[in-house]
């Protein structure tokens, strides 16, 4: 099982570069950048700058929507990053349904990267005699960052990996659904990667738990009903958090996150406890776990401590 590092595209660039150096020093597997649509920094550009750092660490985008950019733009941005990273780049895709859109997006990207002349029309995509003049050079693995059950199965069917985020019980069930999709392939892909992204916080002192509760409130407020059901979390328990989030923001909402929800949704504690908890996801079939954000009160220190704890454990 590999340890990855998660950051947001709204992180300070200097911080993101510092984290990438820590990841390299700690021999981590991948840095995943989550797209924050309110961020002032464009995610492909941030990823490009990180890829310029001398490193062996992979860099992934988790996730961009095929609805936010023209599909040809996603194709060429990903191809450029794959070239720059000499195969170290991973592309995460997400869209809120329908199934056909994600299937089309993945198929079109691969056709473009293969150098085909593509003509295709659907509700969302319109390409006419389009072909890339660049050569992709390096393969770009496509990861689906999805939560809908049909899309999870589709990920197993056609993606190179899946990024699962949500309560731990949900992740366990989601793996099984992705597995069903994998079963539909003619040849089972051994290289398919299951990645789990759960909010993780190193807790030094009790007040640090506030960070974890904030992350949990943010995640729950955005979690669809179906995911909550899969996680056995009653909708009524989340409604007050959503309401408080809308009224008083993260700080207000974090105050009403109950202990059992904190334990279900986040992984927090000492570096050893967090490492053990993350490691426990392996039994569900997870290949990689993403640490953070918010990492801890002092993220750089938290990352270093986490790396050490992970090494001791393995």
């Amino acid at each position, binding site marked *: 099982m590999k340890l990855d590092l998660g950051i947001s595209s709204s992180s300070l660039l200097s911080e993101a570069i510092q984290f990438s150096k820590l990841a390299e020093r700690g021999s981590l597997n991948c840095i995943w950048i989550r797209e924050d649509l309110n961020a*002032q920094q*464009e995610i492909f*550009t941030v990823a490009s*700058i990180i890829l310029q750092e001398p490193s062996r660490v992979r860099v992934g985008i988790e996730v961009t929507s095929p609805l936010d950019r*023209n599909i040809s733009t996603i194709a060429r941005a990903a*191809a*450029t990053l794959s070239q720059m990273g000499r195969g170290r780049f991973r592309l995460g895709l997400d869209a809120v349904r329908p199934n056909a859109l994600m299937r089309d997006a993945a198929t079109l990207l691969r056709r473009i990267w293969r150098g085909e002349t593509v003509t295709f029309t659907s509700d969302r995509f319109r390409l006419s005699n*389009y*072909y890339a003049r*660049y050569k992709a050079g390096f393969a770009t693995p496509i990861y689906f960052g999805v939560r809908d059950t049909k899309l999870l199965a589709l990920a197993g069917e056609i993606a190179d990996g899946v990024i699962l985020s949500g309560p731990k019980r949900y992740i366990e069930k989601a793996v099984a659904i992705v597995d069903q999709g994998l079963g539909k392939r003619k040849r089972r892909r051994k290289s398919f990667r299951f990645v789990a992204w759960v909010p993780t916080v190193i807790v030094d002192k009790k007040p640090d738990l506030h960070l974890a509760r904030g992350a949990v409130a943010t995640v729950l407020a955005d979690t669809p009903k179906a995911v909550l059901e899969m996680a056995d979390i009653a909708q009524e328990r989340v409604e007050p958090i959503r309401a408080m989030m809308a009224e008083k923001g993260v700080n207000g909402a974090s105050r009403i996150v109950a202990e059992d929800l904190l334990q279900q949704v986040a992984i927090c504690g000492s570096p050893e406890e967090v490492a053990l908890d993350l490691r426990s996801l392996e039994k569900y079939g997870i290949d990689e776990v993403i640490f953070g954000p918010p990492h801890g009160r002092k993220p750089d220190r938290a990352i270093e401590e986490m790396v050490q704890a992970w090494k001791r454990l393995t």
Partner: protein
Amino acid sequence: MEKANIDFAIGLNAYETVEEIVDKCVEAERLGLDYVWIGDSPPHLYCPSVAAAVASRTEKIRIGLGLLSPLLHTPDQISGSIIPLIEAYGDRFEICLGVGDRSQLSRVGLDTKLAEVWIHVLKAKQKIARILRAGGVATKIWLGAQGAMMLAASKSFDGVLMNYASPMMIKWAIDKVKPVSRKDFDFGIYAPAYVYRTWRPQAYRLLRIASAVVALGAPEAVLDEFGFSKRLGRALEEHEARLRIESVVKHVPAEVVDSFSIYTPSSKLSSYLRDLGDLGVSHIVFGFPQNLSKVTIRDLASALPNL
């Protein structure tokens, strides 16, 4: 002519590998060119990422991004590229906005025939400038323009990069922009170019293609103004039918190629530059195929004054 009067740039179409593009930019910096412009078009590599790679391997050469089409990139995405680039590599980036290559945009489902497309570009500029100002970033924003309406709209930008090469056409374009009240407004041109010491047939063939693309993408009114419409009739029809440009180009007459490109032996470049300087042009981007190899870039540099 004083070097200080005109900035010289090489334009790079990003369809080579990132490594090849970076190598050429390193060479352009070594030769003393002022700028590299990294193109952005649906069939090319992603310009902001290539710019990051170029910036990380160069120290002082200014880097232009564009032409960036607001039909392809939102203002947030464009400003969101510039802000981290400047933070990582310093204040040496500029952008050029414009509608973009209509033929290429239509291939990826974007309609450029909208009458209000220039307003869309103008609004994008205003939003980008606002976001950059709020982020404490002062980046020069050029407009890439060819038709009369876009040329007139360029007054709202920091400069205009005109898609023309012949002094007669440049003068016509400048007249469409003037009067400009701002003293810091720059007139520039961005044209297919082949300045050579030793003539190479491959480079000339590519120049013909690049010039044909510019001519065939020009607004009808411009082609009418300079009497090109009839001469380009068959080429325009085939281009409209989205046939490969390599087959369309044989119907583009040589004089059209000459009008839309900088095509001269290096020994004669200085008189052309003097003409442009007299017209008030202060920024020249030598476009494809001048970037064909480090040799063609060196040929250009050897012909430029005081490099």
